[in-house]
């Protein structure tokens, strides 16, 4: 199975290092072997299921939602479409971004670790929801950008300026986790669907060049979670301070 072939380098690397370089026996190796088998089987089933069900559907739907018949009710789209004609695409993009992020195993792993390391201060669902909202906003904005054709780097620069401003005011503990969240969420489930959405959109909208506009949607999905995670923590801290103040004043 392809999954085994993909996992093999990592496995060989870790075994090699553990036994040859570090020269230490692996603790509880039976449990680890069983766990690894679970990971392999689980990931294989997961990927097969995605390929069979979600990806084909997602790609078809991306095409259907951006097809001129659906959007404008006629075979050909006008030369310069209004951006609100594509409203359903933005909604679909946002919802798909949100849903794929919730399903993303890599994010589940990171949220679990963050919860463990922060001894419960960071709730798994809180983090995952914050990231999911970020991805939703990112995809919606990204599809909007493809429809209107504005250059990619304007959005990215603007986004990173917001990130920098937030970083100055955010509690230091959350910064690395927030910065990681963006990269983590663009993984097995999100990337194919989002890429299909971007490519499908840019091929059906007149005047867009797929080579230039089809890519870039993933960058949006990586950028905005940083903003929402930091925003979430900042908001929670601000809210707690307000409640503390009003309690003192009473």
């Amino acid at each position: 199975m392809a999954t085994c072939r993909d996992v093999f380098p990592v496995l060989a690397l870790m075994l090699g290092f553990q036994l040859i370089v570090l020269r230490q026996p692996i603790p509880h190796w039976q449990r680890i072997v069983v766990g690894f088998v679970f990971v392999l089987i689980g990931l294989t089933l997961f990927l097969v299921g995605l390929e069979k069900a979600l990806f084909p559907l997602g790609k078809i739907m991306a095409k259907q939602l951006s097809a001129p018949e659906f959007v404008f009710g006629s075979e050909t789209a006008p030369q310069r479409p209004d951006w609100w004609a594509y409203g359903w695409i933005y909604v679909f993009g946002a919802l798909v971004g949100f849903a794929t992020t919730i399903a993303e195993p890599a994010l589940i792993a990171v949220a679990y670790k963050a919860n463990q390391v922060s001894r419960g201060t960071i709730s798994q669902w809180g983090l995952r929801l914050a990231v999911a909202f970020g991805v939703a906003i990112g995809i919606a904005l990204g599809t909007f950008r493809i429809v209107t054709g504005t250059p990619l780097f304007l959005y990215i620069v603007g986004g990173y300026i917001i990130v920098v401003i937030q970083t100055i005011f955010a509690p230091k503990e959350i910064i690395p986790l927030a910065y990681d969240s963006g990269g983590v969420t663009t993984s097995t489930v999100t990337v194919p669907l989002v890429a299909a959405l971007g490519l499908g959109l840019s091929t059906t909208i007149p005047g867009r060049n797929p080579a230039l506009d089809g890519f870039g949607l993933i960058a949006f999905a990586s950028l905005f979670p940083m903003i929402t995670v930091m925003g979430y923590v900042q908001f929670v801290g601000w809210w707690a301070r307000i409640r503390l103040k009003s309690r003192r004043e009473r």
Partner: protein
Amino acid sequence: MPQKIKVRYLILTLLRKLFRNLKEAGRDLLPIILVIAVFQLAVIRQPFPQLLEVLTGALLVIVGLMLFVQGLEMALFPIGEALALAFARKGSLAWLLIFGFALGFSTTVAEPALIAIAKAAAQVAAQGNIIASDEQTRISYALGLRLTVAVSVGLAISIGIIRILRGWPLHYLIIGGYVIVMAMTMIAPKEIVGIAYDSGGVTTSTITVPLVTALGVGLASSIRGRNPLVDGFGLIAFASVLPMIFVMGFGMVVFGVKTFW
């Protein structure tokens, strides 16, 4: 506990955990299933293509996720942490960095999503007459992209490990990285920019992320005076920024630098 009863106890505990994971996996996958179902039936208002295949696929995904999360707790995290601890005890920085680079490189080079994107990028570039359309050129272009990304991820892990050990604050490095990205965006050929931005997001696969995170957190925990939450994370962020820089560099080498005037 006598051996037979102990085995039975372990299996029961495992089954209980698996059942809990099954419920959680179902809950995690519910949104995406709902979104697709609602849109297909209510908005697009067309019959569901191949309903049986879709349902089997959905079932496989849920079961697969359940097994994966269980295996995560049993194997991936403990191994990452054990490696981190062993490296910290051995105290050899060189081996740790070699391991980090090898980990980043090997997982990225085999990454199916990256292979797919590189192939799609070569296809699109050939169609746009940016590169020659013969098979050989496309293959070497795609391979070049893959290797560039793999090297950048390997370096990213190594640099990230150095950061954990030295305790440098993450945001200066990442923001600095993005400043470089923006500067390069100005002078890199337009054709490579979109792919560069996407390659950063693609590299973090379902298996790499837990391993790398466990490694980082484990390293940070075994060094006195480091807060694991602050210093343990951040490796993934590096692995997202560096590919952007390297792929744009690749584009500049292959296509030449874009001039304003």
